[in-house]
């Protein structure tokens, strides 16, 4: 044993150099492999990386925190100046996070409003005459920019509207949504919520909470749907049919009637026919629908259609029968009169298609 030990101690310089050399080469090879093939994470475990999702969430949080701080500073000292608009990761106004809905009576109204917005047929079913929900056209529960977000709508009412030639409060505006987009005449109650109804109060609470920190009466970016440039070729429903089959039908169905899941819940809303919006809804205008579609559809692939495709497919969708315009019915107008009074814009109202005239009575209410 001691002999062996002694011999080890007496290794020649040459031998030690050889060991060192081999060791160096070995380390070099390992190092090269690690560097070239990015293997360090397998040795040390993955480095903590910030994903884009986390970065975005951080920006959103920081914007709201800054708002709170600046508000407080201004309260304490006027010379600190008013708070800035909270700006989210994509440069638009940043609404508060859902977890920050206050835990009080107002917060309860906000939550109820949010539920009505998401599941209109369940939570305001008395006034819903079709199978749509607010959130079908105002995506991400009314938060998404360029999808007519509620935080940009509520700050711009009261306002004069050419549609009904009067000053509209936000309640009047929501009344219009129920009457036309939700086809309230076909609802169990036969109309939109009556003035002062709790449905308005809850929805307005939700909108107002979303807009907490937004500028009043400001045409902020992301408001409404984008106004698309006129297409190069006139919009054409025939071309739109192919766009629809290629991009929309997998969700909304070739017949445009949407699809329910196994719970019987509409996952993809019907786009025309008796269960969709009526001839008075803004979405029946080709230009409005084109703007919405371009910026928001297909879900998960916004802005993937060309301008032309968006116009064409909007034309296709809006050239089918749908529930009658309540103004035409209520005012006892014939189709031509209603067209003259209310349809001087880009739509298919009163036009003949497949032997039927689009507009009055084209779709039985059910």
């Amino acid at each position: 044993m001691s002999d062996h030990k002694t011999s080890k101690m007496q290794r020649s310089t040459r031998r030690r150099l050889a060991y060192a050399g081999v060791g160096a080469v070995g380390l070099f090879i390992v190092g090269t492999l690690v560097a070239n093939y990015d293997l360090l994470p397998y040795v040390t475990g993955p480095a903590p990386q910030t994903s884009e999702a986390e970065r975005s969430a951080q920006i959103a949080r920081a914007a709201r925190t800054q708002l709170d701080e600046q508000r407080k500073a201004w309260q304490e000292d006027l010379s600190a100046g008013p708070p800035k608009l909270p700006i989210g990761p994509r440069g638009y106004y940043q609404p508060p996070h859902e977890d920050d809905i206050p835990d009080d009576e107002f917060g309860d109204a906000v939550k109820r409003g949010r539920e009505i917005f998401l599941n209109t047929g369940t939570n305001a079913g008395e006034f819903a005459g079709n199978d749509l929900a607010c959130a079908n056209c105002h995506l991400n529960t009314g938060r998404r920019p360029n999808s007519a977000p509620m935080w940009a709508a509520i700050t711009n009412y009261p306002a004069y509207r050419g549609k009904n030639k009067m000053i509209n409060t936000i309640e009047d505006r929501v009344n219009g949504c129920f009457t036309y987009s939700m086809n309230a005449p076909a609802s169990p109650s036969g109309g939109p919520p009556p003035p002062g109804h709790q449905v308005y109060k809850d929805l307005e609470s939700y909108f107002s909470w979303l807009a907490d920190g937004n500028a009043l009466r400001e045409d902020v970016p992301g408001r409404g749907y984008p106004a698309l440039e006129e297409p190069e070729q006139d919009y054409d429903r025939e071309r739109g049919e192919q766009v629809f089959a290629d991009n929309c039908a997998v969700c909304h169905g070739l017949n445009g009637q949407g699809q329910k899941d196994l719970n019987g819940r509409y996952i993809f809303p019907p786009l025309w026919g008796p269960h969709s919006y009526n001839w008075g809804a803004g979405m029946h205008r080709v230009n409005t629908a084109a703007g919405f579609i371009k910026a928001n559809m297909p879900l998960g692939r916004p802005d993937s259609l060309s301008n032309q495709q968006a116009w064409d497919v909007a034309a296709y969708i809006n050239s089918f029968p749908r529930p009658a315009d309540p103004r035409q019915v209520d005012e006892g107008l014939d189709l031509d009169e209603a067209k003259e009074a209310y349809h001087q814009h880009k739509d298919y109202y009163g036009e003949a298609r497949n032997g039927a005239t689009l507009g009055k009575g084209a779709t039985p209410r059910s």
Partner: protein
Amino acid sequence: MRTWITPGRLAGLSALAVAGLGLAVLTYGQGEPGSAEPSDEPTEAATQEPDSESISSPLAAVYFGQEALRASIELAGPLVGIGTDRDWACGTCHGYGAQGAENVPRLAGQSAGYITKQLHDYASGRRQNDNMRYIAEGLSAEEMAAVGQFYSSMNTSSTAKPQLNGDLERGQELALEGDWNLDVPACYSCHGSSAWGVGQSFPALAGQHPSYLYTQLAGWKAGRRNNSPGRLMHSVASALSDADMRSVADFMATLPAPPARQSTRLETPAPERLATSAQADSQGGSDEHE
């Protein structure tokens, strides 16, 4: 003893050991495509745009759903492993309750059109998997449809469990609300309010095995899988981080599995024909702009 260990031999052995170690580390690093190891490195397939032939009608699943309704379900028996001792019955890998395991997906309660379409895609190579290609190439269109119908009407409770250390809260957020900063809609907004699937085209995710779901998401992101209608899943998966994919895959494993389907008719009308060349052109075109 002294004579055996010469510097030369030692050097040679060390070099061999180092080379072997290096090789081992390399293989570990690349992993097999099915492994649940994080691998963000795009494979070669990622750079390949699917050629026009590899994109079929986005309504293929609805079309095949129609075929499945017409198929006689008795055809499926021997194929799935009932009353047969074939080596390659579906049940051999997917389980006789079609509950699946790990990277082998659960099939019970999945829509017939979706299953049938996947079999066609395996056979044509549009969806890549050597085992499944071998199986699917041996099936007639009618047999595929029968197998789809068989599994869609099967009732099996979930055997899946979270296993990828995902953040279940984040997974739930993605499932219920999505992440709109990334243009990721809620999973539920297409796969249904219980993630039991919608119609023929949108498969059930609830009760699916996390490593299978994770592998598919990673595959879409990397371009290894590209047979989703309108490339919808490609867009969604590309926006998800590795952690998000693990989170959402784990979350789905916490949900009750879809019940058997008893469809006697389609939820939405089927196209008369399958492929549309205009579709291939327009899709190819728009992808290039991304």
